[in-house]
């Protein structure tokens, strides 16, 4: 029996169309989730600590204001790698710039969520669970997928139908993205060629004592006992890697992913972590902003991703694998006094591979002359819409299923393409730019928002500078034509705000200031 068809059918019959709230535990099988016959692979690149998007993807059209707010961090304009007239990469990101120029990199601007939480833990929970900011969900966005398909896991797994782990988290730690209701669906994997080092500290030296002897026995046994250990090692050994990678842990993890995928491991998801983005201090070297911790991290990221995707191309796996970065938040616009930046709001998210929609979605973040000390980058896109679009387009899921697993409706965004590589400079992924007029600005108590609807679903909301959504003006389908809305902000304190408009897949963020 063709399992795929079987699952499709079951899905058609059994799926509740309405999205359930996320806090309802997913105990019912949703059936057609990640398709076991589909060989698509998603590699998640978790940039832990909160990446400074403004020092990664630099908006050239905001350069002057950006420099005014973070002079100590600011990269010389002539050092930047221009991608388009308005967008440039950090000078260390030659690898990802090459991917961009080859039409294998898509950048989505201002990715975040309403009511940005600036706690690492909490915001990581939100990103890994895909919950609302106000909602506590203990399952991961991918784990729910797996759990609804396989509610009895890990009982009787692996088995003939599912010989391989559902997901691999490179490193010692399973990924929260793969947390099911009671069990995590990812296998933590340090070294696929030596699965006996699975336990934490599995390779630290053993003392020459009875304690050391028993410890050695246990470590070996634990490595051998991992239900997936043998198959993972087998696949890795059957796999291949055809390019040189940089010599660091991150690149090595990506190389191991290449071995596993090319060796035939059927895991759908790999999570590779790169930590250290919490750059409160010494983000750059004093007097030399091209150097410093963030520069090194971006070098590691960019060179690793370039090598990985070159390897995928050489291995003929490009149409099977995409990569997607995420980070719990961006950083604030203004530098702090320690050559660093503090926890902020939205940031760009990158998709890589020959099947991603190349170019940019969204526009440069708007940087004021003087940013509020707490001001982060305004949100343009909700990360859950990206998750949903990836699930739908990459894993070929029914949109209703995607909504059910995400826990709410999502807007399908054009973040993936048909794997036909074209030069991104010739592509304009942004259809006609969304415009709206907001006046007066500055304003005293209320504003007018005037917009032209194309008849699609639209949402208008007001955010403060910390990413908190202070008002959802409407979220509905607007008739085509011009509309005008008044938003009363009488009761809000003076200061800066953002008007966010989304219409279909297009978004717009405008900074407004309430005068004293």
């Amino acid at each position, binding site marked *: 029996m063709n399992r795929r068809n079987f699952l499709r059918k079951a899905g058609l019959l059994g799926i509740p169309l309405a999205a359930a709230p996320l806090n309802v535990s997913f105990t019912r099988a949703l059936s057609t989730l990640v398709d076991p016959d589909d060989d698509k692979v998603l590699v998640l690149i978790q940039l832990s600590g909160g990446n400074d998007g403004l020092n990664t993807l630099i908006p050239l059209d905001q350069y002057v204001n950006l420099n005014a707010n973070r002079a100590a961090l600011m990269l010389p304009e002539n050092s930047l790698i221009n991608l388009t007239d308005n967008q440039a990469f950090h000078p260390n990101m030659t690898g990802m710039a090459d991917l961009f120029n080859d039409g294998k990199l898509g950048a989505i601007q201002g990715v975040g969520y309403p009511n940005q939480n600036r706690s690492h833990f909490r915001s990581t929970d939100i990103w890994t669970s895909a919950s609302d900011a106000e909602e506590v969900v203990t399952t991961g966005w991918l784990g729910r997928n797996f759990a609804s398909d396989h509610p009895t896991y890990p009982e009787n797994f692996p088995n003939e139908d599912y010989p391989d782990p559902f997901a691999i988290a490179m490193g010692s730690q*399973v990924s929260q993205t793969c947390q099911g209701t009671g069990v*995590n669906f990812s296998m933590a994997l340090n070294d696929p060629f030596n699965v006996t080092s699975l336990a934490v*500290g599995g390779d630290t030296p053993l003392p020459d004592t009875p304690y050391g002897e028993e410890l050695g026995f246990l470590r070996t046994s634990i490595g051998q006992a991992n239900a997936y250990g043998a198959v993972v090692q087998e696949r890795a050994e059957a796999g291949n890697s055809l390019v040189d990678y940089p010599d660091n842990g991150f690149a090595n993890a990506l190389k191991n992913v290449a071995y596993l995928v090319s060796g035939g491991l059927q895991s759908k998801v790999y999570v590779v972590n790169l930590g250290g983005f919490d750059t409160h201090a010494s983000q750059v070297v004093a007097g030399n902003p091209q150097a410093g911790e963030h520069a090194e991290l971006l070098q590691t990221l960019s060179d690793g991703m370039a090598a990985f995707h070159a390897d995928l191309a050489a291995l003929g796996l490009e149409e099977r694998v995409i990569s997607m970065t995420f980070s719990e938040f961006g950083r604030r616009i203004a530098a702090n006094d320690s050559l660093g930046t503090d926890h902020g709001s939205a940031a760009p998210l990158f998709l890589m591979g020959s099947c991603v929609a190349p170019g940019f979605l969204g526009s440069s973040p708007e940087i004021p002359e003087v940013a509020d000390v707490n001001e982060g980058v305004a949100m343009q896109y909700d990360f859950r819409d990206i998750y949903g679009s990836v699930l739908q387009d990459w894993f070929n899921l029914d949109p209703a299923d995607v909504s059910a697993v995400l826990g709410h409706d999502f807007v399908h965004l054009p973040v993936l393409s048909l794997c036909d590589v074209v030069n991104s400079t010739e592509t304009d992924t942004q259809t006609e730019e969304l415009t709206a007029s907001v006046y007066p600005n500055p304003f005293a108590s209320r504003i007018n928002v005037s917009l032209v609807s194309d008849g699609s679903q639209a949402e208008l909301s007001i955010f403060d500078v910390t990413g908190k959504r202070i008002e959802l003006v409407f979220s509905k389908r607007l008739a085509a034509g011009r509309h005008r809305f008044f938003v009363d902000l009488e009761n809000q304190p003076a200061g800066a705000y953002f008007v966010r408009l989304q219409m279909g897949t297009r978004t717009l963020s405008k900074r407004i200031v309430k005068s004293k």
Partner: protein
Amino acid sequence: MGKHQYSTIVTGLPAYSGEWSYAQAAHLLRRTTFGPTKTAILAAAGQGMAASVAALLANQLPPEPPLNPGVTEDPFVAVGESWVDAPVDEQGTLNNYRVQSFRSWIFQQAMTDETIKEKMVLFWQNHFGLTFNGNARVRYMWNSLLREFATGNFRELVKQVTVHPAMLVFLNGTQSSANSPNENYGRELLELYTIGKGPQIAEGDYSNYTEDDVRALTRALTGWRIENINPQAPGLTPGSFFQSNRHDTGDKVLSYHFNNQVIQDAQEDEYKNVVDILLNELETARYMVREFYRYFVYYDISDQEETEVIEPLAQFFYDSDYDVAATLENLFSSQHFYDILNRGPLIKDPMNYIMSIVRPFGFDHVTDATLASDYLFYQRLYARVLDAGMDYLSPPTVSGWEAWYQAPSYHRNWINASTLQQRTRNTDQFTDIGLNGGGGVRYSIDFVGWIANLENPFDPNTLIEEITRILLPQPLVQEQLDALKDFLIPGLPDFEWTDEYGAYLSDPTNNMLFTSVENKLKDLFRAIFGLAEFHLS
């Protein structure tokens, strides 16, 4: 026939006289209880070795008996009352819940006992290897005997075991008569319970006894019968009695191993003479002391340890007239016991393993617990231990569990791919959601509340160091501590933990902050529980 004479005055093992602090106290409690709490370790560290050992071995009142946790269909026992003296129904329906109740109760004792008692009950449970498949009341009687003599006099214990109704059923004593002797008990009494079977040195000669001795002892033990083994009416008590006309009154001549002693007819007291003869042999003390040693210290006994530890301790056990408490006191006060080489190499048995996950944390925070939920929780604990390879009430054979007798691997027999996966599932479940007590009561570990009582939970380094000091037998190397920190605060600087934890403490009713901190702690504890070191004691 009588007691042996005190031949020499021996003092057992050289006493420990080194530093007494946290590490020594923790080692003592890890080996003698089912997973010590921080409070217990600190108390033991504070009161010194002698007082700590004395407290572990102190006599305890018997615990309250197991209860009916909520079965309203029991006509004999109201909910909340004990069933241990109550009759059963003919169909055995009542017995089913009582067996479950009994299982729960055993784990409740293991969870709450602060002394060595429950560890010793398990020791004897293994030593005698008895499985009784019938009435819960008889199982409870058996268990009560082991509990009563947990650290009591071994001589008296073996005597009572010999005529206990559960044993008379288990090893067929009740079927053994002068005309039709059944050797089952006589054989195990020699082979497993007292003197032990040595290498075969001649046809039917096992170094310490011969096949003829098995037959002689069997004859001496004839005449014991069981009664009321499954009482279905009030007033009847399961028990045993001596039936003279089934007893073999002839002389029983023992082999040269026992100086060809003759056991003469002594009717209902004859079994006591049998036990006295066996215990008059120093070899019995050696056999038992090796078993204590493997249970409490380490399975591998070198020639040097045989000479320097087993022999003097066996002599002590013998000279103390088989006083278990005194002998264990000697062991737990010895230089050898605290030798660094003996700290940490003991692979936890399944019960120790499971209990060491939950007991250091406790469940005092489960404020909605009821009698029924407690019993269901403990029943589930029992099942977890069973899944990990130990069915407490049903040792696999009369020899007990392989890991406690099978050379050369001994404790390593607890560990295989299947049991390791089971152990990991257990730690994952306890870390993630805990166990369900029914009625909406969940027994999950309160990691967030628990760390508040540590020395400095704000600093991730001291936090992790102290947790591992409580849960693991030896300090980790720095590389491992760093790796663990990466579970708590992946890729983040230390102060972010201080900030996040502080944010939660300043707003403790904020569920989002709580969950975030709890999730990180779960990641950390899952990693600690996943360490190879966590399988060791």
